[in-house]
């Protein structure tokens, strides 16, 4: 698997660290305990195209939002996480 880092170019996935689903949103404190439990432990875990966060730990150390198909490992798009918020 190769990830086309917007800063470094096409690099081996071994240079990256995966964080998980990018759509998870930290709830507001007022939303209560259930919302936080869902945020920490709940996962959509779809078989299909999802947005996820990867960290280019052995490269530019940018956080990236990667659009990837979990059924095939095909990568559809890569962008800086600060710019792409699904």
């Amino acid at each position, binding site marked *: *698997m190769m990830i086309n880092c917007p800063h470094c170019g096409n690099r081996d*996935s071994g240079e990256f660290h*995966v964080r998980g689903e990018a759509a998870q949103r930290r709830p507001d404190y007022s939303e209560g305990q259930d919302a936080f439990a869902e945020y920490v432990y709940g*996962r959509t*875990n779809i078989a299909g195209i999802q947005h*996820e966060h990867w960290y280019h730990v052995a490269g530019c150390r940018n956080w990236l939002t990667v659009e990837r198909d979990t059924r095939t490992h095909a990568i559809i798009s890569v962008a800086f996480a600060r710019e792409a918020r699904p």
Partner: protein
Amino acid sequence: MSAQHYSIFALARQALAKHRGWTPAWHNAAPRERYDIIVIGGGGHGLATAYYLAKVFGQKSVAVLEKGWIGGGNAGRNTTIIRSNYLTPANIPFYEMSLKLWEGLEQDLNYNAMVSQRGVLNLFHSDEQRDAHERRGNAMRLHGVDAELLDTAAVRKMASFLDFENARFPIYGGLLQKRGGTARHDAVVWGFARAAAALGVDIIQNCEVTGFVRDAQGQITAVETSRGQIGASKVGMAVAGNSSRVAALADLRLPIESHVLQAFVSEGLKPVVPGVITFGAGHFYISQSDKGGLVFGGDLDGYKSYAQRGNLPIVEDVCEEAMALMPMVGRARLLRSWGGIMDMTMDGSPIIDRTPVPGLYFNGGWCYGGFKATPASGWCFAHLLARDEPHPVAAAHRLDRFAAGHLIDEKGAGAQPNLQ
């Protein structure tokens, strides 16, 4: 349908008749209109559930729905290890129940599952790791499970080929569970399928569940499948690897991520690895099949996947660990590698529980540990389905334990499924 009894006499009789009298091991059923209990997933866990529902809990109307064929999923993709060397008070009794069931399984099923208690040896490579293994061994022994702490000399006696003087990871000893070992993965599902079918369970292959039918109260009344609608009073999911996909059909979101785990087998060799050996300085385990191939594996690839295949960095990583542990393995050629999809939970322990949807029950989140759990998982899930209350050894494996804070945190890795 009553099955043929397998024995040395049956074999001799069939040999004299040129093996023309064997009948299929189980009946390939077509779906009926409705069942009392439907188990989704014809893997080891689903079939074991159906078998114990019929055998132990007296259920007469049970069906197993399998989207592919029996033995075609994770039952055919694991590394066949059985053991109960766990640490937490919730997991030890459960896995020990499983190991005890393994010990009598072949006689119970009248099927040769090739259960071989050749021992599981976890190596350690530092004083700190020795302490951790000693603690684990003590926890096991307090629960009545066998565990022995071996020093270097004792390990050397068992497996002289290991790299004891490795500069970075010298071997300081190991924790041995002699009752652990391996079993033949295909034979386990075939044996459970045959024994369940003989007790009247319908095993329906090529039947994918595509939806749930619910009444006004939300109660499950039927499942939609690729072979039509099938009515059911209770539905149990045993589809680890795809749990989130099936749960989504009932609008449930689970504390599970699906990850790919690779495994490898070498060309066939003469007997060389005495049991199951694990490398404590990384994550690597190896055993030798009865055919002679070295069966081994290591870490998850680390990213979510339903692809049933992994990538090369893990191939490299696993082979490096193999070389660090037993350099002689470098002379063997790799025959095959494959990937299976693991239900990784947020604490590394499984879930057997009701769901918030009335009539829908859940068995999943087996992480890497599903194969060894097969018999106890089936028994406990059957208990839950038949009696609507958890089996005592699986009472802690609840779906709501994450929100409640009662995690069964075997490894203490936190809500990071790819590190469990």
